[in-house]
């Protein structure tokens, strides 16, 4: 039982990261019908920016008040990556808005390659390590399962951000504008909504969440490199499809489920570690055969 509980905690932590990143994919798809392949790389950019700011803070000889400093760094990095997201949309996607669906996808792949290589050239191709011991290494033993403070923080922050996004999209005027834009750009414009501004807003929210995920991955695992975004991006994209792409609760559910699938595959199937990814993608295929629109459906109209 304690093993099952431990695996559930493992799976939830992995899933929380997938969910945070999946939100970026799903919101962009909802509004633009574009799969933003560069989103995983924005997440990676967040991890590197966080590393830079934390190193600067520690380099300045300040060690007290690290918790407050981390909070400020979190916000700064989220803003910086959001700006990168907006620039990306202006430069790579907006000029192609009327060019059909294939051209922006190719453009997204180009942005992805650009970001990866830029980070590789700036930070070097080797693994980079986050400083150790920023978050106190406290752990609890709950019914035989080990839980660390960082795991709890990861889950709390992820759920808080996801909750905040859900509230924003569903219970504010801007959120209503996003949902209206997702339904139909032209009609939204007729209602007096500035569609370009809404698209920019989506490219602020998604990358900011991804950046938060990036710093948490850095703090939690301690090891980052420039292709980080590729692996996580693929998994998060899968999670978004699993939950129903274009659907915000779907991305959250999809991320958590994918994390738990993987964990159960590695934890309970013989040779499951080696076959983990194959098993989770096989499950994805099964679910899509039964429910082609994903678990919660991809009808953007009401759900986003």
């Amino acid at each position: 039982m304690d093993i099952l509980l431990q695996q559930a905690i493992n799976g939830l932590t992995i899933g929380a990261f997938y969910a945070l990143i999946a939100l970026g994919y799903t919101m962009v798809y909802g509004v633009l019908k574009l799969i933003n392949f560069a989103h995983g790389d924005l997440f990676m950019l967040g991890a590197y920016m966080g590393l830079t700011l934390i190193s600067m803070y520690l380099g300045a000889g300040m060690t007290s008040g690290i918790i407050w400093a981390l909070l400020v760094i979190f916000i700064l990095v989220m803003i910086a990556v959001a700006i990168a997201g907006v620039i990306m949309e202006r430069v790579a996607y907006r000029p192609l808005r009327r060019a059909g669906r294939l051209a922006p996808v190719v453009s997204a792949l180009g942005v992805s390659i650009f970001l990866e290589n830029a980070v590789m050239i700036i930070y070097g191709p080797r693994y980079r390590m986050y400083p150790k011991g920023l978050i106190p290494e406290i752990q609890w033993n709950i019914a035989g399962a080990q839980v660390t403070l960082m795991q709890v923080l990861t889950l709390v922050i992820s759920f808080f951000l996801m909750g905040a996004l859900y509230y924003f999209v569903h219970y504010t005027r801007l959120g209503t504008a996003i949902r209206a834009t997702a339904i139909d750009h032209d009609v939204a414009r007729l209602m007096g909504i500035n569609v370009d501004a809404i698209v920019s807003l989506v490219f602020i929210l998604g990358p900011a969440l991804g950046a938060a995920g990036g710093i948490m991955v850095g703090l939690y695992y301690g090891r980052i490199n420039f292709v980080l975004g590729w692996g996580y991006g693929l998994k998060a994209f899968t999670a978004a499809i699993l939950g129903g792409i274009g659907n915000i609760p779907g991305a959250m559910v999809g991320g958590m489920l994918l994390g738990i699938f993987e964990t159960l595959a590695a934890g309970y199937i013989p040779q499951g570690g080696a076959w983990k990814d194959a098993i989770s993608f096989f499950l994805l295929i099964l679910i899509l055969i039964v429910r082609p629109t994903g678990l919660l459906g991809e009808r953007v109209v009401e759900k986003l």
Partner: protein
Amino acid sequence: MRKKILVALSLLVIIALALAGCKPKAAEPIKIGFQGPITGKWAYEGEGMVKVIQLLMDKVNEQGGLLGGRKLVLVTCDDKGEPSDASLCADKLVSEGVVAVIGSYSSTCTEPASAIYNEHNILHITPSSTATVLTTKGYKQFFRTCFLDDRQGLFAAEFFIKKGWKKAAFIHDNSTYAKGLAEWAKKYYEEKGGTTVLFDAITPGELDFTPILTRIKEAGPDVIYFTGYHPDGGLMVKQAKELGITPGIVFAAGNACNNPEFIEIAGKDAAEGVLVSTEPLPGDLPYPEAKKFIEDFKAKYGEEPASIWWLMAGDAFNVIVEAIKATNSTDTDKMAEYLHTKFKDYPGITGPILGFDEKGDRLGTIHKFYVIKDGKFVPYEE
């Protein structure tokens, strides 16, 4: 006038040639070839190997050479670590008339070169190419002074049994090298009475290994042997500590984790007490031959040899010298026959060379366990 000069020159040439022909045969040097990456990404290894071989060769020449006073000369060829250059090098060394060749560094270069040396029947010893496939082609004159991965597996298995660790978990990363090592270790471990409680793989480059680690915890082995590379190994060690697996269960890793970054990723606390099986660093070799050679090397070049592969090249040279001495010839068939059958228990720089098996692989093992103490690899002492 011009005609006279021509005639005089021709005469001179003829005399010179005649004289050369008359030279006593004993003085004709024996050519030993070296091919390896003297420039390029592995230049460091190739350069070091040449330094080591040259030092040993000078010693032999000071003592009067071989076969009744014939001096040795080293003919080098830079293959840059590229397979295409490796074939050209082999052709060049063959046409230079070398009697034996040491090289190349990487398996991808050694493979094409070995086919050419085999075709021309020239004794060929690689100091550092560990790919199993190299000695499976039935080449009678091909040997290596390094060890295959199965020796490391054998060494680790014997060590675990000796420590009384009866149950083990083997984790690899699905790469050819890591999977091979894990499979060898498992095979030998079970042959010696150990029980494998888990044999599985992780995905390299991933960040979260807690699912498989939790499973290991449940399986309850005495030791975990991870054979993948250091970025993943370091992270596994960190997460194993967080899950409370270590220090209760011993974490051991293969030679791909022998890298300071391993400790950096794991963190000093979590890495404490982790074991790593690997070829020893030159400075940690306990053998008198090694200590003496390192002194000589320092005296000549002002630095210690940095890589075990340099010393492996030195041993390859020593093996060639022994073969020439023992057979009193430079005939490839005789030397190869000698190395396969009669060459036993030679005190090499990298440890005793027990001999070569029928495929040309070195017998025995020189692997060591290192333990991480205070963020540093130190040789493991009982």
